[in-house]
């Protein structure tokens, strides 16, 4: 039995360490440990601040899924204060959310995940002409001709289209060759390029994907143009409680939003749709099929047993979230929990997760048995609104607290807590959303919206391409990666849908973008609490606020990567990262590429997930910075 440590796990957001216990003879992972190794304490920082400012602070939880935490925070504050935002603000926020999903997913695949599948070194063996032919074949076979509703379409022809010429691929190959010959590999240094998994794909696929890595690196910036137009910048665009700051006027040449500004958004959304349809979706499906055909259907782990979602994209403004109104307006109703999808649709069980449920401590709670925090009552999990924790850093099993050898899976080993649904861990993310919507529609729980219908159509189309049923290919490392690509296509059309909706509403004469009736804290109740839900790129995200006397008395965020990367619970039951590592075979003990590929298929975001929770109303001084109990 060999213990293998990977720290730092790179090509992710934040600081993550994984350790596995490996049976070298069989390649079986006997146990796995996932540890978030940093804690920033932003919830402590926002305490006692003006709730109208908090979106900007918590937005800085993460610069990769930028805007997600801001919008979750705005929704929580608006829920607490009973603010309904104008229609235009709802459409604009949905455009910003969906284009962020697209950007986040596309950059994740090409720039954070691709190098686990493809290698620039292998690309050197490719024939440039055959690569051009391959590009044509990939577009023919793996394009998914699905689309959302389009009220108008000013895009005359696809502007973003892959190049398939021999000269193009030869030039890219020559550049890679030069880098390798110069010996300055830069970002390509020190990877296990000799790992056998890089032989699953033919050299031409490697060259094609490396060329697209570079092409998309230079094109991705155009996907988030809506953030720059509506929010002034990216990352970290600007918002306001009550709506959006970008006033709309067709009568003023200096207006934040006028026809010319909207034209820039239109062009961006059109380019985004082309990028997803012509590059991302076909590339992922081409690689995915080769892997599935060669029997790579591992890495599912917890996804086979339990997935969870909150739902997103309110079609119209709503009066609140905790009161259940948000859930009635959603286009993507992935709210709920699905168990046992890995055993097929028949055996899969759907559980409702209503607004009432999520505010119930018996349904939603967090534990700290293996987290570097302590709870007042040992072993008792707490709901986020009631959360209470102090840092309790206990160090590693072997090594010193500033020089770790191995962490201790039997004690505390992570700055992440363990979120639970009815006492059980669950996987969240694009894969979870797809499993939940597919199950709900197929079991007749919901009549599908156009969004949900597209989800089902995509899953069925891919099942045909791969010639295996969804329960076989979806809950796997390949499936997690494919679901993200499908969701990107979906989100590109969601941007388009809400853009059309925005135009129609402006056409009807409504240019309002902000509801400022309750801007003044004098109009607020003495005490209020709210929850803000979103489906962030990495999964179900919730922000929780308690407002007292115009200030945040308590603030918490339960984020997707906490659900997925959490340490095991008190019974030793694993979270999603750990379960997926245990469900993955390793060929070369000291080069666990398969483990990194599986973990990266979640798109880890550790800065998002490491937080501290405090009791409502407790003074800030309650945070002890000394891990050994001295105050």
């Amino acid at each position, binding site marked *: 039995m060999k213990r293998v440590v990977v720290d730092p796990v790179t090509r992710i957001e934040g*600081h993550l360490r994984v350790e596995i216990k490996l049976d070298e003879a069989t390649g079986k992972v006997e146990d796995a440990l996932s540890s978030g190794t*940093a804690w920033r304490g932003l919830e402590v*920082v926002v305490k006692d601040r003006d709730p109208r400012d908090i979106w900007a602070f918590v937005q800085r939880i993460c610069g990769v899924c930028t805007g997600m935490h801001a919008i979750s925070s705005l929704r929580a504050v608006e829920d607490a204060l009973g603010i309904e935002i104008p229609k235009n603000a709802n459409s604009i926020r949905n455009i910003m959310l969906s284009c962020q999903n697209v950007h986040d997913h596309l950059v994740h695949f090409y720039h954070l995940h691709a190098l686990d599948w493809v290698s620039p070194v292998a690309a050197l063996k490719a024939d440039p002409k055959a690569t051009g032919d391959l590009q044509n074949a990939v577009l023919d076979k793996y394009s998914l001709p699905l689309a959302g509703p389009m009220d108008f379409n000013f895009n005359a022809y696809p502007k973003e289209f892959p190049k398939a010429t021999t000269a193009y691929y030869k030039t890219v190959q020559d550049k890679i060759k030069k880098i390798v010959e110069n*010996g300055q590999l830069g970002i390509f240094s020190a990877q296990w390029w000799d790992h056998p998994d890089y032989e699953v794909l033919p050299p031409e696929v490697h060259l094609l994907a490396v060329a697209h890595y570079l092409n998309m690196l230079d094109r991705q910036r155009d996907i988030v143009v809506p953030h720059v137009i509506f929010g002034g910048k990216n990352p970290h665009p*600007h918002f306001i409680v009550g709506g959006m700051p970008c*006033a709309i006027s067709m009568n*003023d040449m200096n207006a934040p939003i006028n026809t010319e500004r909207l034209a820039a958004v239109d062009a961006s959304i059109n380019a985004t749709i082309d990028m997803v349809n012509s590059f991302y979706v076909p590339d992922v499906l081409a690689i995915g099929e080769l892997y599935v055909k060669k029997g790579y259907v591992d890495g599912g782990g917890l996804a086979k047993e339990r997935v969870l979602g909150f739902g997103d994209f309110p079609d119209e403004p709503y009066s609140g979230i905790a009161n259940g109104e948000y859930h009635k307006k959603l286009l993507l109703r992935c709210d709920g929990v699905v168990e046992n999808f890995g055993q097929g649709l028949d055996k899969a069980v759907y559980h409702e997760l209503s607004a009432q449920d999520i505010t119930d401590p018996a349904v939603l709670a967090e534990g700290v048995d293996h987290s570097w925090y302590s709870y007042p009552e040992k072993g008792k999990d707490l709901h986020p609104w009631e959360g209470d924790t102090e840092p309790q850093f206990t160090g590693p099993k072997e090594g010193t607290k500033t020089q770790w050898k191995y962490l201790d899976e039997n004690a505390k080993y992570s700055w992440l807590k363990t979120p639970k649904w009815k006492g059980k861990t669950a996987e969240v993310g694009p894969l979870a959303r797809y499993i939940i919507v597919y199950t709900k529609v197929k079991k007749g729980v919901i009549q599908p919206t156009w969004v949900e219908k597209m989800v089902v159509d995509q899953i069925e189309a891919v099942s045909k391409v791969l010639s295996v049923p969804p329960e076989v290919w979806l809950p796997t490392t390949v499936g997690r990666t494919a679901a993200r690509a499908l969701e990107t296509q979906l989100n590109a059309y969601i941007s388009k849908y809400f853009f059309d909706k925005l135009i129609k509403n402006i056409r009807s004469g409504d240019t309002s973008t902000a509801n*400022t009736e309750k*801007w003044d804290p004098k109009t607020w109740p003495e005490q209020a609490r709210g929850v803000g839900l979103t489906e962030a790129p990495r999964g179900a995200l919730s922000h929780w606020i308690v407002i007292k006397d115009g200030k945040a008395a308590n603030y918490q965020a339960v984020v997707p990567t906490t659900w997925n990367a959490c340490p095991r619970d008190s019974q030793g039951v694993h979270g999603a990262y750990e379960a997926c590592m245990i469900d993955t075979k390793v060929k070369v003990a000291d080069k666990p590429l398969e483990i990194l590929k599986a973990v990266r298929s979640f798109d880890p975001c550790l800065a998002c997930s490491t937080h501290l929770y405090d009791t409502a109303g407790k003074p800030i001084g309650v945070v002890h910075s000394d891990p050994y109990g001295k105050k």
Partner: protein
Amino acid sequence: MDGKDSLWGLFQQRGLSRRSFLKVCMTITGILGLSPAMLPKVVSAAEQNPLPVVVWLHGHECTGCDESFIRSQSPLASDVLLNMISLEYSDTLSAAAGEPFEHHLEEVMKRYEGKYLLAVEGGVSTGNEGTFCMVGGKPFVAALKEAARGAAAVLEIGSCAAWGGVQAAKPNPTNTVAVHTVVSGKPIIKIPGCPPIPEVLTGVVMHYAMFGQLPPVDSQGRPKQFYGNRIHDTCYRRPFFNSGMFAEQFDDAGSKAGWCLYKLGCRGPETYNSCGNLRWWNGLSYPIQSGHGCIGCSSNGFWDNDHFYDRMPGIPVAKTITNADTIGLVVGGAAVAGVAAHGALSVLQKSKRRSGEHEEVGGPKA
């Protein structure tokens, strides 16, 4: 190695003279603190040495600065990564991970000792002996000090590295500090912003790749070409400030007309950054153009400078026009007096904040 990717190669490609190349080598010799007798060695290294090596570390951060970096339009991210620098270590973009990755860093630090640029994104957590931020099983603060020892210069990327950032806002539970608080004895350049504008980030790197030296900086260590003016001085809405035309609340007639956001808390008058002139996405927009006041994200301690929507202390403003139809009635006198006064007064704002003084010197209350 044929030297094509060397600094001299770059100069040749760009049609720059041998004379200017030698001048740059002299400057590098100076920056590196070497004696003039070392010049021939620097010249020979720059003739043959490959691309400038960059090591990019991550402390307490959100990765927004990496994201900003790859959004650059000119230069494009691919040109920076493949032809301008050799990014040998980056948690976000490097292919490798774990032990081989850490070993590679050690090798790079040895091979390029005294030559590599150290880019640091994120604040440095010093609480609990640095255990609030562990990388590779060691505190980040230790890794940072080790990497800084052999660096030619240090770039503080973003407001977290330059000032401590959002986690250092009160009560700073992890005791996070700026990079220069724990690293010294090296040229240190601040590139603040949350995040910095993409072209500002790559602009500093490009300057180094083009001219072989770090760009000129102000007294605080910020490149003057990017942080030489306040946003207020370059803001396209400045004429409305001067004329006393303000948005009074979000989505009102002034907001729609794109008037000055000063009364909604805009920090443009005290913030040094390129948002007004470069803007984001090569001129597409910036927060003020999109209707939200500047929050001062490139300023030291901006997180603790009041509620974002409170107007700044200490700037006199003219009478406000609330109705677009009455623009013709503006009398400029009060505004002109205000403009003359506010330049001098901006210096006083910090002290006014500290003393809790929030009354404006003149003009009506918002």
